[in-house]
């Protein structure tokens, strides 16, 4: 066996960069996330798989426990005190989400299970009404499978066509090509805000302007955007915006669909059941008003409340400070990892957020992932549910380090040491 030097790992919790230039107190922030005290294979956990799911601060864990300990009851139906408490807390969470996205109205905030369900909801309601035989749905070449497959299902059912706007070698959307693909048959554009595999930030203002010039509504998959920088749906003028709670420090099983009120009002319901109706007889059912029309059945009440706690937590830290810290971290990681011999960065867009994707000569991403795991470093390896992106770059998969507010430069240094160690194993 090749003998290699053990990478020198700093305990990231004792890192030198207590204050990042963004002004965030990283030691304090890290202490807010109890899981960061875990040891993996005897090493401090270095969690760089935030694109898959983020860790949760204590306030989110407390919100879940507090809900079930002090207010568990069904919402919108009880006259008793607990039901009132639960309903008020759930309503407050919706208000928090509205503020977080700067939506005009809480009725535009639909709670769903995650970004995937949000996109399916739009495909199966707006899509089924407006997309017909010979029509087109336009997406981009950097979509996650969750923003491809729901549209494929719709197109298959309707005899419509899925069009794909290409990306260049840096992983940037080719806006001219995109504009050419918006035509009279285009019924909806569905585009990611940030690519989960490449980190590319899509210039949404331009994309939305182009689509709107052709009167085409735009759905944005914001799952990889909302954890990293402030999003203002009114400034963007997007028609739909989807995100998952668990990628933005909230729990799994809860997510959000924002939709412009006029569009949501005109859409048929997604699922039928309780809470989404005004009155039911066997002859006729009248649907409830927004947002309840799209929220059939008892929702994930604790999840919504905990998501609200997560959004309040990062809003209090300051989205601009988070963006500044992560941007600095990503630039540092890009330079340090990029300097390792044999590294090829996948996704080198001018504007990136959260994600560093790469391949390493002679080391398969899976092997790299295993070796880093032994050092306590969690990264994602594989195709990242974006197989067409992998195909575009002629690779089977990448190794991906993805960042959150609690990550430090010391952790990036440990990643670099781990990658260098892996190179020596396979040299």
């Amino acid at each position, binding site marked *: *066996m090749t003998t290699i030097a053990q990478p020198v790992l700093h305990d990231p919790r004792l890192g030198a960069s207590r204050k990042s230039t963004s002004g965030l107190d990283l030691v304090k922030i890290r202490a807010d996330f109890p899981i960061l005290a875990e040891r993996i294979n005897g090493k401090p956990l270095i969690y760089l798989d935030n694109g898959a799911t983020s860790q949760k601060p204590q306030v989110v864990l407390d919100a879940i426990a507090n809900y079930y300990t002090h207010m568990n009851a069904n919402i919108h139906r009880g006259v008793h005190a607990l039901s009132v408490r639960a309903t008020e807390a759930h309503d407050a969470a919706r208000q928090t989400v509205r503020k977080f996205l700067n939506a005009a109205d809480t009725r535009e905030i639909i709670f769903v299970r995650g970004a995937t369900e949000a996109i399916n909801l739009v495909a199966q309601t707006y899509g089924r009404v407006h997309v017909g035989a010979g029509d087109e749905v336009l997406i981009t070449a950097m979509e996650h499978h969750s923003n491809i497959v729901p549209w494929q299902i719709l197109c298959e059912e309707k005899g419509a066509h899925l069009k794909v706007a290409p990306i260049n070698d840096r992983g940037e959307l080719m806006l001219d090509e995109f504009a050419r693909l918006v035509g009279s048959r285009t019924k909806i554009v569905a585009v990611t805000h940030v690519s989960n595999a490449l980190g590319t930030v899509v210039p949404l203002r331009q994309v939305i302007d182009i689509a709107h010039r052709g009167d085409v509504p735009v759905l944005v998959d914001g799952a990889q955007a909302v954890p990293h920088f402030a999003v203002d749906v009114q400034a963007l003028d997007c028609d739909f915006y989807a995100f998952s709670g668990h990628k933005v420090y909230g729990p799994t099983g809860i997510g959000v669909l924002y939709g412009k009120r006029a569009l949501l009002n005109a859409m048929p319901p997604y699922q039928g059941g309780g809470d989404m109706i005004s009155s039911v007889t066997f002859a006729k059912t009248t649907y409830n008003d927004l947002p309840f029309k799209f929220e059939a059945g008892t929702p994930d009440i604790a999840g919504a409340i905990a998501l609200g706690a997560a959004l309040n937590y990062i809003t209090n830290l300051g989205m601009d400070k988070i963006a500044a810290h992560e941007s600095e971290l990503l630039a540092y990681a890009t330079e340090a990892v990029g300097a390792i011999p044999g590294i090829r960065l996948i996704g080198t867009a001018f504007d990136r957020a959260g994600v560093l994707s790469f391949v390493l000569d002679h080391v398969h991403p899976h*092997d790299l992932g295993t070796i880093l795991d032994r050092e306590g470093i969690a990264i994602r390896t*594989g195709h990242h549910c974006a197989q067409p992106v992998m195909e575009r770059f002629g690779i089977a998969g990448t190794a991906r380090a993805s960042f959150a507010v609690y990550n430090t430069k010391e952790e990036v240094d440990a990643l670099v040491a781990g990658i260098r160690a892996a190179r020596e194993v396979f040299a």
Partner: protein
Amino acid sequence: MSTGNGELSDLYQEVILEHSKAPRNFRKPAEANQHAEGYNPLCGDRCTVYINMDGDAIRDIAFQGSGCAISRASASMMTQILKGKTKAEAAKLFEEFHGLVTGKEAPPETQDLGKLKVFSGVSKFPARVKCATLAWHTLQSALENKDTPVSTE
């Protein structure tokens, strides 16, 4: 790898690293009369196993594809051990190999795995079992001459 990371050096044994860098029987034999494709959708690894059957015996066996060190080494060493074996012997070896990499090892005296025992470290890495067994699943399909590619999922 340095000490203190024993499980990792158990996984990436020198023999495994050597086979992954220079896999044996990495070719497409002209005279192959059966083959199958295997695919691991989680990591995108692909493997095609070619065999030349002489009655019930495997006269020649080779593979092609792309994958991680574990899957390449596993495929390489599988082709070495199976040359000349019968279908029944191959099936028994797969069963033993599967037991080895999932940590449900049979008593040593019943084992014919020989050099393949270097893969015992895989059992400590449950996420990597599919890497080690992709070639074997593909072989099984090639022996049955199935048309549909096998998937680890």
